[in-house]
């Protein structure tokens, strides 16, 4: 998700403008000049101004200095990554979205099918996406949820839903 400064800058302008507009439409406190509208207005305008400056490339030089410093150290790792990037670019880019997508899956699934199966699916997918063999991923997908369940559900008493797999023999609800 490498975007040009122009795109991110204009996005900030739009967001700031919307925030300022939305803020200005909030109802004021009767009998007072200052209400909940002031702060979003100020922040929104500030954001829009900054976004405009970014879009015009102001302050870009500082970033280059920092990047040069960092590049010295990570050059060796970076070259590896770039080399792999070229082979299947779009597919690799999408892989970054696996963790947040899995978290959304967790939200949708955990109440229906229970914690253990959901967590197992989550661990298995992440592990495979990182290039693990099944020999590692499957035991991990079985072991890690059980361990997390033990710690959070038994020791910390977080109500994790049991769903399809109530396991009274493990002392789980």
């Amino acid at each position, binding site marked *: 998700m490498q975007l040009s400064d122009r795109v991110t800058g204009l996005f900030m302008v739009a967001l700031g403008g919307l925030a300022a507009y939305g803020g200005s439409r909030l109802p004021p406190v009767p009998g007072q000049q200052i209400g909940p509208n002031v702060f979003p207005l100020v922040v929104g305008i500030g954001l829009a101004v*900054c976004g405009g400056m970014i879009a015009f490339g102001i302050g870009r030089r500082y970033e280059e200095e920092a990047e040069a410093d960092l590049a010295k150290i990570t050059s060796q790792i970076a070259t590896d990554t770039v080399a792999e990037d070229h082979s299947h670019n779009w597919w690799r880019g999408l892989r970054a979205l696996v963790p947040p997508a899995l978290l959304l899956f967790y939200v949708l699934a955990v109440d229906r099918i229970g914690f253990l199966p959901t967590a197992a699916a989550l661990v298995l997918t992440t592990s495979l996406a990182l290039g693990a063999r099944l020999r590692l991923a499957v035991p991990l997908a079985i072991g890690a949820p059980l361990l997390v369940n033990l710690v959070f559900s038994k020791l910390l008493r977080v109500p994790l839903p049991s769903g399809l797999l109530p396991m009274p023999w493990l002392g789980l609800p």
Partner: protein
Amino acid sequence: MSTLLEAFRLVMQTDVLLAILLASIYGLVVGSLPGLSATMATALLVPVTFYLSPIAAVATIIAASAMAIFSGDIPGALLRIPGTPASAAYTDEAYAMTRKGQPEMALGICVWFSALGGIAGTLSLIVLAPPLAEMALNFSTYEYFWLAFLGLMCATMVARSSPVKAIASMLLGLLVACIGIENPAGTPRFTFGITDLLGGIEVIPALVGVFAVSEVMRAMLTAEPPKLPYRRFGSILKGQIALTKKYVAPQVRGNIVGIIIGVLPGAGADMAAWVSYSMSKRFSKEPKKFGTGHPEGLIEAGASNNASLASGWVPSLLFGIPGDTITAIAIGVLYMKGLNPGPTLFTERASSMYALYIIFIIANIIMIPLGIAMIRVAALVLRAPRASVMPVIVLLCAVGAFATGNNLFAVITVAAFGVIGYVMERNGYPVAAMVLGIVMGTMVEQSFVTSLIKSDGSILPFFSRPVAAVLASMTIAALLWPLGVWTWRLLRRPTAYIVRNEKP
């Protein structure tokens, strides 16, 4: 004296000591794994701290963060891959020492001077906090407003990025803090009719997303770091006393710089290490030796990043303004445990404060034996493939966020902020500035609006009180500083802008 004894009694509980020990081991392991930062270690600890006593909760955070900052040096020295961003500044130097056949020396410096730096930072916390608390008791909302504003500006000034982008990130954080009904009128603001947003964006899930999920997202796209070959180490601490005596000045300088940077809001251990390393090079008698495995810079920067860790608690405890991203998380825990930050903490809960100092010192002392043990088993820990560590972290993000309020919406927050953090990082927007905005948003708005209501909409009282005037001028200077430097550079080297390189 009785408060001190009471503090010892608070610390010497079995649960507190056990918490320190376990959190230390956890911090050492997480810190040493490349790609897992000290902040992430702390963020993932938070759900566990809910279920501990207040002192034990704070103790876990202190111990885990201190250990993680040190143990980030281990893969740095042995593999040339910093375990945490705080080690990045001197990774080359430490690795050069390893290549010269002195890995014991490099790692010994890291553990020994980290511990000494941490203790120096703690002393600064002990010395600085009470007089500042005395002063802060007289602060009104005007001073608090400027202080918070100054804190936000500091965070943008020291970010290793374009100051404009840093300010934009910070404003984005403030905007996130606007969400919900916690505003002067109690009207639902930017909730878009979603009930879950009425309470606002919760800080802890947002931080877990920004620091943990986005890290896993990044791991998806980068190559796995190489494995560490097993090696036998000689004595780790041999010669450290001699080095301590030889390099007194760099060490003291490193501690002081670390303390100052720690106190500055938003600037943490990584910044301290960068500044100290370059300072060490500039003031050294033999700058040519830097980069070839010379201990001087390593000593200064290694002491600096651990010193900053303790002094970062000064603004956090006094004003609720986080000194770095780790204390940003710690503040959330403090509120939850009834240790609300503020100057009264030092008068009313003095024993808790002393207990905190004691924990800091204990953590930095046990860092030496535990750190040496960690160095010896590092080859084993670093053998764990990333594909086995990262999935567990994703799972802990989900369960941990859920545990903060038994609410699945927190997990959605984690996912959303993971994406936001990832996109921002990739495009050069410093996430630390946004985090500071989120954490401090409510405080900034409250002090701003209350001050405006008190003054009937006039801006004059913001400048008429003496302390407020000083803070105001500092803030405005910080605001204009990047603009000034930019114009100056533009006038001096007009061509520099034309020949700049685009990002690949």
